[in-house]
Structures are given as C-alpha cells and as structure tokens.
C-alpha cells in the first residue's frame, strides 16, 4: 500500500509536469481524439507532445510488458494512473483498436516475432489498425464468414468483403478473419490474418450512418496476397483468437455505459428544465434520471467487481457478455434521457450553438452500441448457454 501511495504521488507529479494544459480540457470534437497511424495529422503540438511523452513512458499501454513498448504496470498501478489522469482531466493520449483489441490477442496468441514487430508500433501510435470481422452475409452469425484465404505456397490469396470495418479508410493494417478450410465445420475452418491495407487489391468504401458520421466502411479484397508469416496462431484455429479478442471488444464497448461526461444528467436537466423547491421541475424525468443514475453507479461497481474477481481467480469467462449487454443498454437509456433533458435544443443538427448537433449525433451513435461487437441478443444467448447452462442454447 505504501508503494502504491508513493507511485500515486510520482504519477501525479509526472502528469502535472508533462501533460500540456491543452490536453487537460475535455474533448470537444472528434478531432480531439488521437488515433495515431501513418497518416496521422496532429491537431496541435500539444497533442503530438502528449502522445510522445506518454508513449516514451509506456503509458499508452500501461499494463503491457516493457519489452513491447508498455509501461509494465500492475493492475493496481494502472488503476492509479487512470484515476490521476481523470483527476487532472487528462485526455487519452492515444485511442486505438490496436491497444484495445489486437494487442491483448497478440500478447496471448502471437509469435515472439509478431509481438516484437507489431506491439511497439501500436504503443507508439505509429500503425493504426482496423478490424475485419463482420461480412455482409455474416453479422450475428459471424462464424459463417465467407472471405477466402487460399494457400498459394508462401502466401495466402485473399478474396471477399468485410463490413462495419471501423475507420478502414484511415487504417494502416487490418486484423482479419478469413476462411482457410471451406469444407470444415464453420468454426473450424477460420484463421486470423494480419495485413497491410496498402496491399494491392484492398479498397474501402465509407458507410454513412444515421448520425451523419461515417465511422464504418465496407472493405473489399480482390486477390490480395498476404505472407504466411502474418498468420496469428495456428491455421484453422482462428475462432479461438476471434472469441478472445471479442471479449476485449465487448469490455471496451460495455465500458461506454460506465463513462459519464463532465456534467451529470441531473445537472443537464436542471439547466434545461429548471427547478421547483430545489427539485427538477419535471418530476417524472427526475425519477427516470435517478433510476438511471442508480443503475449506472451499480454498473460501474460491477466493472470494478469483475476486475477484482478476475484478480482472485473467480471471474467467469462469459462476464464480458454481461458487461457488454448491460453497459450498452444503459448507455442507450442514458442517451434517451440526455435527449429528453435537452428537449428541443438537443434536436439541432448543425451550427455552432449545438456544436454541429453533437447531442443528437451522439444519441444516434449510441444505438449501434448494442449491435456492434455482438448484439444484445447474442450476449443474452451466450449468458444463457455459458453461465446458466440452459439447454439447446
């Protein structure tokens, strides 16, 4: 405990000395998020400096081993780092699917060579990754995927198409599920491949969503040649890696239900709806907000508890389905209340006053939370089968 307290002091001092003031203000726009990558354009010197300093410390990926560019922190130390960053209002220096999804999978399944090649570049924000999972014909039934990778000696020949590839048009590399044995049962003919998005035959087409944003693409592969060294794990054993990575994706998306912006819903509503004797003037909305806040706090504690249970070896492997399901449904409920509290102001779609319709667009974006990374219904199937042991599920 004493060591942790001194770690906290050192961490605070370091953050105060090294986090530029601009990086301590809440993010206002999408551009405030740094995703790194070959074509990264830093919005400001402060943003670049902040990434460089944190990457040098290994704190873009605090819990990864030092030899792969991580900070080598324990779980408790990493928690302290997050707390201190929150206390100072520090922005995340780097957001990336490499950090959240591929990294953990490579640490578990990757060869030593693959770890040394890819992990440090993820940690430094040099390579931006995208995820090639869903296909036009394979959504909830992901294992039915059809993108083929044929054995051509030293290389695979990849043909097919992926959909909902987040930021594929901005990504440098893709981690991709491909079918390497079409005759095997569907879960047993899938492999996990890594390749460069600049390879010949790769093209992307952004998809505009109801929020007006285009975070997703359809991605096409036409005779793309991929070196065999880019196969992660064993041939035809990619489904295990896919599932492992999905638990990380679920934790990431589920975690959205636990994060709250600077102002609480109660504060937002107090400003728009007004108060009567110190209570929100709209008493029905007040009750709904309180009910939501109760669930949100209990959910945050559940994320803490899941971590604490994992630490003492009591975690259930399907707990990420619980967090994903509950967290995303909670976030959708929260955004409905944000819209309700915001009233007609929240309906604005353009213009400076509404910051280009930030609230309405965030509300619409939240609807994808319970679809992406496995729908709520798929999570409930997993819980029914793997935790409750219900038959035939």
């Amino acid at each position, binding site marked *: 405990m004493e060591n942790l307290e001194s770690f906290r002091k050192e961490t605070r001092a370091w953050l105060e000395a090294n986090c530029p003031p601009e990086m301590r203000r809440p993010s206002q726009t999408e551009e405030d998020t740094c995703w790194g990558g070959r074509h990264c354009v830093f919005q400001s010197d402060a943003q670049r400096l902040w990434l460089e300093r944190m990457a040098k410390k290994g704190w873009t990926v605090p819990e990864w081993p030092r030899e792969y560019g991580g900070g080598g922190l324990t779980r408790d130390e990493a928690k302290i780092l997050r707390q201190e960053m929150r206390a100072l209002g520090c922005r995340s220096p780097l957001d990336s699917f490499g950090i959240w999804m591929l990294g953990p999978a490579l640490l578990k399944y990757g060869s030593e060579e693959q770890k040394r090649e890819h992990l440090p570049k993820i940690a430094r924000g040099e390579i931006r990754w995208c995820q090639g999972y869903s296909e036009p014909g394979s959504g909830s039934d992901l294992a039915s995927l059809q993108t083929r990778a044929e054995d051509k000696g030293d290389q695979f020949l990849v043909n097919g198409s992926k959909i909902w590839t987040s930021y594929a048009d901005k990504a440098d590399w893709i981690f991709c599920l491909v079918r390497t044995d079409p005759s095997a049962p569907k879960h047993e003919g899938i492999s996990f491949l890594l390749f460069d998005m600049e390879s010949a035959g790769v093209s992307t087409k952004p998809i505009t969503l109801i929020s007006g944003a285009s975070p997703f693409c359809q991605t096409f592969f036409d005779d793309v040649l991929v070196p065999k060294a880019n196969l992660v794990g064993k041939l035809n054993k990619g489904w295990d890696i896919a599932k492992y990575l999905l638990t990380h994706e679920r934790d990431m998306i589920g975690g959205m239900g636990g994060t709250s912006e600077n102002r*609480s819903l*109660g*504060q937002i*509503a*107090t400003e728009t709806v007004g*108060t009567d004797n*110190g*209570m*929100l003037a709209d008493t029905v909305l*007040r*009750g709904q*907000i*309180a*009910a939501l*806040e*109760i*669930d949100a*706090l*209990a*959910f945050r*504690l*559940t994320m*803490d*508890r899941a971590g*604490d*249970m994992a*630490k*003492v070896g*009591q975690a259930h492997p399907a707990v990420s389905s*619980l967090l994903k*399901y*509950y967290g995303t449904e909670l976030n959708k409920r929260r955004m409905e209340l944000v819209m309700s509290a915001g009233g007609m102001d929240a309906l604005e779609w353009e213009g400076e006053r509404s910051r280009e319709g930030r609230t309405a667009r965030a509300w619409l974006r939240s609807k994808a939370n319970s679809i992406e990374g496995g729908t709520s*219904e798929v*999570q*409930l*199937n997993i*819980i*029914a089968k793997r*935790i*409750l*042991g*219900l*038959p*035939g*599920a």
Partner: protein
Amino acid sequence: MALVLNDEQTMLRDNARGFLAKNAPIAHLRALRDTRDADGFSRALWKDFVEMGWAGILVPQDFGGLGLGHVEAGVVMEELGRTLTPSPFLSTAILAATAIARAGNDQQKKNYLPQIVAGELIATIAVDETAKHHPEKTALTAARAGSGFKLSGAKTFVLDGHVANLLIVAARTAGKPGETNGLTLFIADASARGLRAERTPTVDTHNAARITFDDVNLGADNVLGKVDAGWDALEGVLNAGRAALAAEMVGASDEAFSRTVAYLKERKQFGKPIGEFQALQHRAAHLYCELEVTRSAVLKALQTLDDSYDRAGAIVSVAKARAGLSATLAVQEAVQMHGGIGMTDEFDIGLFMKRVRVCQELFGDANFHADRLARLSRY
C-alpha cells in the same frame, strides 16, 4: 477495498449456509406459520445464533461481541434470505446493536450490549408511523415532564415488536412532522407503563407489531444520543438496516433464481425442456445480469458502512433501490416461469415473493431511495 469477500467472510458465508440449510430450511418457516407460533420465531434457533456469536456480530469486542462489520452482518442476512428464516437477527443484532453501539453513552453500552450478545434481550427500533417510510414525518411526541419525558403516539411495523424487551423509539421533542430537526431517540423498556404492542401478522410470516405509547414516562437517562438532534444517528441505523435488507434480498432473489433456472432445465413442454425456448432464455439471462449488478452495489454499500459509516447514505440508497427492483423482478419471473405450480401454497417459490415484497417496502422502497439519491445529488 476489493469488491470480493475475503477468506474469513467466505468461511462465514459457507458456515452460515450449511447451518441454515440444516437447521432452518424453508420448512422451518412453514412450521412457524402453520402452527401459528406465538413468538413467530424459534427461541431454540435464536439460542444457536447466540452461541455462534451472531447476536453480537456488530457489537465491539469490549462488550463481548464479535466486533465484525456490516459486510459480515450482510453475509448472514444474505443466507437468511436464502432460507427465508425469521429471526431477531435484523431487529436485535443489526438495528438495535448498531443504534446503541453508535449512539449510546458508556453506561448504555455497558447495560445493553452484553445482554444482546448473550441473547438475553430482544431489541428493536420503532420508527415508522405511516404506511410509507418517511422517518422525518415522525409525529410521536416526547414532551418534557419533570426531569424526563412523556411519550404519546403510535408506531407501525415495528420488527419483532410483540416479542421485544427493549425498543429504540424515534420521537419528536421539537419542530413539526416533516422536519429532520427536533427528533430524539429513546431507549424504552417494553414493559413500561402505557406501552402496548399489538402483533400484526404479515404476508411473509415474519414479525411486526403496532406499538402505542399512552403517556409513557421515560427518564433523561433513556435518551439515546442528543435531544432534538437524533436525526443523524437515526439515519445511520436506518442505513445499516437498509443495506442489511438489500443483502437479504440478494440472498432471496439468488435462491429464487437458482430454483427457477433448475426448473427451466427440468420442466418439459412441447417435447423439450422449456429452458430451450429463447423467450425464456433471454429473460433468465437478463435477470442474471440484473442480480449481478445489484450484488456489486450491495457489497459496496456494506463496505462503505464499515469504512465511512457517516457517508454511506448515497451508496446505501443505490443498493436498497437496486435490490428492491431486481429482487422483485426475480420473484415475479420465478412464479411466472414455474407456471401453475408457482401459484400453489405447497410449492416454496411463492414464499420468496412474499418476503421480497416486505423487504422492498421496509425502510424505503426503490422510489423512496431514488428520490433520496436525487436530493443528495441536488436535482
């Protein structure tokens, strides 16, 4: 603090579970009900609790108790919820012991705590006066009379009220009903002149009573804590009770849920186990999530009572509200998924519904606690 039970707490849970399964299964509750037991609980079983130290679980070791915390008391409550066991554990070992240990003076602690530990005293708190929990609306008056006080009024839903030897009474010494100022806690002997208890049998076959105070004279040394400023002490005791009830609901809903999932696997219709139907699978999976999320909040609330007793209000409200709602969902789904048999008195599942309704209502239902949280958050 990590949100998991430590080794000692896990051992306490396992011991309590084993003991209650053997000595106080649901058949025990049925026997008390069907024989219309005059006490409404088993004195022999309570003696066993006393011998295991449970009566003094929260009593400091200086007064002969185990000196454990609210997490441990909650562990026992959860197991009592699993078997629906009626006992004075909540009234005496949690509510009264907390009130005296936290708000009492040395003399009062020395007088009463060892008696609680030894099982010589059934004690309880008398707070509510109206159908819904509103402690600030206390109207029972304690008027100054000589060097002491004279209490007049009535209390409702006093746990174990008809068997209690000692009552801790919230009374108004100043101000108007609705105000938190002007409340005083008193320790009253149940045999005091003018004090009358009327047992009120309730839906769940646990003990409650109406108590009337007809000019009950109490001395100045019967005041527990400060005159006119008893609100904080009362809130503390109520928070302990709320968190304990939330733990009981976690146990009751967990047991009802386990029985329901087992039934889904066993009951066949249309030629297959009904648990194969996705309509039921998704409801069961959703309920599982609700119960897990509640469990986190309840454990945090109990830990907070141990770490910072005076600042536990908000998290206790979260826990009590969550537990009330998720346990209600659990027992409703339990009866529905059991179908016709779930409606029969012979089958146990309906007993869980009855107990949870009472736990939900006691010391504030989910709406009360949502309102309280909103107030604490100033909206």
